[in-house]
């Protein structure tokens, strides 16, 4: 049967891991290639890079980073941040990304998702949705790192990008991101139930039970986390073993 995926995420700026990581035995804990390789060897099911300061000028740095990472890891690599057009998708795929994630550009023009999916296939097109709770059971899309409200309903937008050809949704709760209070489960459940494509829960994972809840209560197909792994609080192996012990089918080889 299909296994639930555990995905460590690296926030990257100008070719370096933001805030650094706290692995033992890593010569340069700020080097995304070294960190990605360590996660790959530790059993990560996929790895995600988010370029949080993407600008036109520093794109070359990101392409080079993706190329060097793709040479070192043997699990899928997703890259997001600053992706605006199907030309950006093509450039990242050619650099070595397996999947490319749209965020603000898909909100501004959902047809960019369709153009990219038609060209490269839905399997490599992810849409990252950043949502905030505006009233109980109601979530709105926010862009620009959660600062800019759009008035767009998150559940409706998820359905729209699925119809446009997105292959997966990376769902981040802006209420929970960075809090370590756990994923926003009602939001995750609402989006997971609304679409037929996989949903990755993101934003708020602070302990291993949160990962379990994202799957069992939120209905997500995968869970993404950053700080609980970067700071060595838990290893990938501990997280997967904990999820498996909770009855979730995991790849443990």
């Amino acid at each position, binding site marked *: *049967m299909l296994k639930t995926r555990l995905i460590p995420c690296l926030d990257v700026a100008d070719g370096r891991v933001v805030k650094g990581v706290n692995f033992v035995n890593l010569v340069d804990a700020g080097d995304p290639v070294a960190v990605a390789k360590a996660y790959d060897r530790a059993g990560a099911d996929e790895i995600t890079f988010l370029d949080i300061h993407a600008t036109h000028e520093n794109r070359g740095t990101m392409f080079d980073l993706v190329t060097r990472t793709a040479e070192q890891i043997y699990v899928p690599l997703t890259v997001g941040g600053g992706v605006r057009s199907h030309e950006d998708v093509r450039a990242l795929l050619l*650099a070595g990304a*397996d999947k490319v994630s749209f965020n603000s550009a898909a909100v501004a023009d959902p047809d960019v998702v369709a153009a990219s999916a038609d060209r490269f296939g839905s*399997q490599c097109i992810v849409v990252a949705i950043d949502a905030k709770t505006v009233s109980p059971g109601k979530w709105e899309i926010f862009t620009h790192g959660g600062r800019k409200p759009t008035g767009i309903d998150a559940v409706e937008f998820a359905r729209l990008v699925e119809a446009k050809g997105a292959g997966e949704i990376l769902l981040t709760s802006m209420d929970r991101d960075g809090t370590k209070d756990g994923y926003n489960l009602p939001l995750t459940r609402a989006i997971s139930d609304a679409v037929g494509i996989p949903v990755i829960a993101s934003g708020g994972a602070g302990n291993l039970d949160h990962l379990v809840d994202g799957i069992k209560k939120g209905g997500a197909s995968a869970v993404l986390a950053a700080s609980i792994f970067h700071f060595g609080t838990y290893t990938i192996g501990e997280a997967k073993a904990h999820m498996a012990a909770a009855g979730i089918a995991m790849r443990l080889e």
Partner: protein
Amino acid sequence: MSLTVLVDYDSGNLHSAEKAFQRMAGETGAGEVIVSARPEDVARATRIVLPGDGAFPACRRALDAVPGLFAAIEEAVLHNGRPFLGICIGMQMLATRGLEYGETAGFDWIGGEVTRIAPQDPALKVPHMGWNDLQIHKAHPVMTGVKSGDHAYFVHSWQFRTANAPDLIASVDYAGPVTAIVGRDNIIGTQFHPEKSAATGLRIIANFLTWRP
């Protein structure tokens, strides 16, 4: 000198596949690995790998758009018996036909059709995306050291339904069987991406690079 050609017909990124094949060629002494769209490279290849990402008809069109390329592949594989590995859409194109966006002729090297995955359980998502454990139905040299229960990475919404049971090497379960590996004679194809399937995938690549059908 052995030469493995990864056929590049502008259908997806071959960089990570190239690196994985080069690494395993180095470890197994399997010679050179190159990425090329030139029919003359295919003609001199001792092994051929056909990747493919995206939609079936788009891949078929892109392949046919390179003059002489498919003819060279067909000559090498069907007449000269060169070992052939198709990956993802490169595997699906081995079928008689694909039904994605209307009917498209496949190579018809392995009988069957490519149809949409439609899990009975509505909770199951499409694409079938992630790690699934292989159920191996038939021993094959390319599967040496890989056992049922080992995982491979899948990402696809369409699947190869083989017409002849002996051509089905392995499947996975997704509310019913989904074809994972097809093969006959010197031809094998994997729905999953071996270059993205960690140690199991690297083993399959190494086995292919040393396979003498």
